[in-house]
């Protein structure tokens, strides 16, 4: 009886094994591979090649060797300013909003009524999913120079004179606009980490007489150390490559390059040289350098978080 059952099972699995040999894997893969190869991988290679030319809108390949990279180092007078702007923008936004405010929001919303907390957290998703042009519009209106814009009207309530925010406080706008979008990522990661802390630990702290602040300081924060480091590294890279909201609000101005960051400079070199010449070659060189900076940071990131574990072959596989 048992043996018959086993035999039947063995036969079935033999049939199955034959069917598992699937020769048409390529049907599943070809469309994606073709797209990614043509419109993602080849552009990567092309960027390196274009960075060795002085290509402009005529799309001619005039090889100039490393000239663009030498220009970057010695010729372009704006590089120190743009580099400084980029570091300022990335780290202030990262520390104040993407990590700091994100941590504050997750700590506060996990310590109040759970439903209220969850609704507040979901509201923080709104800026991220709002189309960028609409989101920028909200801020552009709030910071208009007229006395009846939201910012100036609020100042007026306290008896202050209206300010032309975009001219006088461009960095404030850039950082607020990006910061309010940037909170959600860290907030979600931190909240998940805080919720996964075992209740036993929290209770133990409470029994030992810790108040809420001590409980946060000595129990919760140390236990979410890794998520915090993860958010810091990951968001550093994201911010480094971001420029869309700056383009939409200050446009890198006012004046010359006041709030211009690296990524925006690349875009401008290629697409916004009003009346001047576009510089695809130099822009591509700056793109390559931005990637090198990013990759250097990524390597650290991969080391810390052991991404290799994600790449292991699937456990169950029949070929």
């Amino acid at each position: 009886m048992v043996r018959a059952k086993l035999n039947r099972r063995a036969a079935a699995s033999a049939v199955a094994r034959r069917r598992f040999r699937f020769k048409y894997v390529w049907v599943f893969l070809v469309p994606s591979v073709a797209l990614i190869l043509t419109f993602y991988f080849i552009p990567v290679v092309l960027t390196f090649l274009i960075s060795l030319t002085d290509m402009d809108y005529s799309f001619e390949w005039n090889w100039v060797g490393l000239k663009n990279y030498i220009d970057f180092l010695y010729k372009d007078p704006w590089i120190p300013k743009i580099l400084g702007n980029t570091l300022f923008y990335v780290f202030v936004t990262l520390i104040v909003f993407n990590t700091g405010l994100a941590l504050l929001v997750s700590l506060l919303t996990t310590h109040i009524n759970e439903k209220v907390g969850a609704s507040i957290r979901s509201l923080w998703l709104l800026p991220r999913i709002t189309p960028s042009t609409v989101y920028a519009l909200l801020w552009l209106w709030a910071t208009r120079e007229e006395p009846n814009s939201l910012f100036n009207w609020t100042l007026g309530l306290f008896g202050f004179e209206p300010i032309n925010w975009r001219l006088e406080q461009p960095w404030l706008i850039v950082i607020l606009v990006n910061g309010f979008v940037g909170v959600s990522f860290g907030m979600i990661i931190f909240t998940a980490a805080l919720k996964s802390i075992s209740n036993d630990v929290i209770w133990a702290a409470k029994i030992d007489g810790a108040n809420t602040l001590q409980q946060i300081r000595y129990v919760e924060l140390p236990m979410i150390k890794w998520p915090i480091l993860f958010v810091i590294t990951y968001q550093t890279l994201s911010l480094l490559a971001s420029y869309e909201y700056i383009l939409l609000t200050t446009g890198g101005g006012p004046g010359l390059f006041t709030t211009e960051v690296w990524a925006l400079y690349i875009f401008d070199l290629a697409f916004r040289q009003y009346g001047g010449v576009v510089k695809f070659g130099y822009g591509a060189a700056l793109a390559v350098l931005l990637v090198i900076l990013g990759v250097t940071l990524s390597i650290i990131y991969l080391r810390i978080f052991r991404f290799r574990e994600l790449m292991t072959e699937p456990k169950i596989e029949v070929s």
Partner: protein
Amino acid sequence: MPSIARILGSVFSYGLVLGITIPVILLYILLFISSFTTEMDGIFPRDFTLDNWMLVLRGSISVPGTEYQYPNLYLVMFNTFLLAVSVAGLEVILSSLAGYAISRFKFNGRSTFMGIILILHAFPGVTLLIAIFYILKTLGLYDTLLGVLIIKVALDLPLGIWIMKGFFDNVPWDLEMSALVDGCNRLQAWWKVVMPTVRNGLMAVLIFGFLSGWSEFIYILAFISSQDYWTLSMLVYAFTSGEYFYINPGVTASIAIVYMIPVVVFFLFAQKYLLRIQIAGKGIT
């Protein structure tokens, strides 16, 4: 009985969290109010009017005192919708096919493919704009929505494949095994048995793709030059940038609200997917 310190503490927590959250919401509420008035004074509307919305319903927007005519609003909405739906559809289909293959099959170049997907993550969109411009020009896809669509899908796909691979990895092998034993072939097993169990992943990729296509701005700005192919993002940008012509803030607000509709719908009814998308890596800023 709660101590006074405890009550004070929770009042403080609520106060603080509302204090930092209200500015986010306020901007959206003001946008909504602006669409029903000619002018705002801080948070108060000056009057009530439906003119803005009537103009939006008519669809043709011209700039007073000039010859300039913006592209018809319905055309722009159609373009936006077409782009969003195609991006979403293609991303769901392609990423579930490739994600399944990577999750389940051993084939030559599997690790290479996965490695490339990871490495490509190091090349954010901005670094490839110039090369993509070159390719689109060469292929004759510059200034077409098809070009923008292809670029969007290609650049989003690695993430989509990665998300779907994760979902397929969680489907127990026994499920497919029983389907195969019952006489399905691999394609049938994938379509009839496995795909329904990864519904959540498909929804996440679908919503991600739709929002990504619906909101796209940079590629439209960079790779579209005819106004016939504008999407709503370009229209709203044109209203505010001054590169074209300024338009009445009330009308701009109404169109911005139209633009927000799908976003709000997803926000209200699909929040669990939005959270998943966020974690999966749409952490752009």
